[in-house]
């Protein structure tokens, strides 16, 4: 019985030797496999699960509105927005308005200009800055949205927005559109028709404007130099409204 421990003592040391060797070999192998010019970050960036679906961070969706082509009194874009998103179309202070037509006038010359006004989808959105719950957020592709699951209806964003682009839903709603959930007690605004953009289509206002033959609104990727909107922004003088705020808006205007 006393011999058993003496014979068994060399065995554990042999096992630890083997384990140590295996550990060193595995580390060395891993080092060799990862070493030649391949870093973990590149592997992570190289193959997203599904490159087609979801908001692409390389894209910045934007709109270019040519106010010289925008006729005073024309509300095709507003009507299309209301129809697409299931808005009532009312203009009372308690009605939601995602896009509205405004008239601007130069005081000295008296020249008037008509243009649509909606969420400008800022790169530095004040509504996101002030939101206490994180409900107001900017998507990876630059679209500024409200997550109504998190929104508590405090309306800080309504106050913070320099463009008066956000609305609050005061009364309970029914018969919402399946693609556009809206509900009482939450803030909402232009979504750039995100459900259509995710399908590869243009927003409803853009489609309506071009279908009516005005063609005053161009929608596209501001980050892609080959896109129509980027070419126009590069060749024409465009303005952002309230440029002094340095919000880098996604909606740009010509002729104001």
């Amino acid at each position, binding site marked *: 019985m006393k011999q058993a421990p003496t014979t068994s003592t060399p065995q554990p040391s042999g096992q630890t030797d083997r384990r140590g060797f295996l550990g060193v070999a595995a580390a060395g192998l891993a080092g060799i496999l990862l070493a030649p010019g391949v870093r973990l970050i590149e592997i992570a960036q190289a193959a997203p699960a599904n490159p087609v679906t979801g908001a692409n961070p390389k894209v910045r969706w934007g709109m270019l509105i040519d106010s010289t082509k925008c006729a005073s009194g024309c509300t095709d874009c507003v009507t299309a927005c209301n129809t697409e998103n299931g808005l009532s179309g009312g203009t009372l202070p308690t009605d939601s308005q995602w896009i509205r037509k405004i008239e601007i006038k130069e005081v000295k010359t008296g020249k008037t200009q008509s243009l649509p006004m909606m969420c400008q989808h800022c790169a530095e959105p004040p509504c996101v800055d002030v939101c206490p719950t994180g409900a107001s957020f900017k998507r990876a592709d630059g679209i500024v949205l409200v997550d109504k*699951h998190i929104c508590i209806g405090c309306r800080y964003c309504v106050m913070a927005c320099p463009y008066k682009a956000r609305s609050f839903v005061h009364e309970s709603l029914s018969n919402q559109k399946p693609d556009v959930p809206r509900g009482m007690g939450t803030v909402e605004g232009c979504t750039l028709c995100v459900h259509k953009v995710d399908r590869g289509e243009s927003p409803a206002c853009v489609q309506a404007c071009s279908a009516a033959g005005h063609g005053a609104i161009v929608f596209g990727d501001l980050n892609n130099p080959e896109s129509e909107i980027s070419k126009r922004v590069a060749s024409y003088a465009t303005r952002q409204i309230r440029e002094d705020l340095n919000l880098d808006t996604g909606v740009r205007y010509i002729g104001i």
Partner: protein
Amino acid sequence: MAHPQAPRSTRAAPPPLQGATPAARQSRFRGVPRFGSLVFLLGLLIGGVTHADSPTSRVPKPVIEAARGGQCVEDPAFMRRHHMELLKHQRDDTMHGGIRGAKYSLKTCIECHASQTTNSVTAAPTNFCVSCHTYAAVKIDCFECHATQPQKTSSLPLAQPVPAGSSLQLGQQQVKP
């Protein structure tokens, strides 16, 4: 000696209580039919409930309407317990990541489970979502914002109506746990 024998001889009619007024006696006798009727009513109630149920189970079950499509995205037993987690996960993916048309989207649930009669998941007390949530006493606020009816024009194959016989069979299968 005559006094102890008196109860034995008049067992059917109890002896008049000494010192009890006629009114008290009357009330004591009125109590017997009241209790009897209570037992009778209870019996009716229990009998009615057990009769209304299926012979295999005495536990009442919620009405589950047949879905329009053939096969759910997961096993019905799994969906019954985990659909809320799947929906919440999908909701964040869709809202923040822009991932649409995924497997567990509420929109596709509604396309398939909207009632054949009301074309909604909440319009009638027996409609798919409201029926179970009423039974489980769970209040959901999904439909304060989300549409309860499928889109008018849908590209999804699930929303195609199936023959009445097969959908009924599916509904019956779903009722059983």
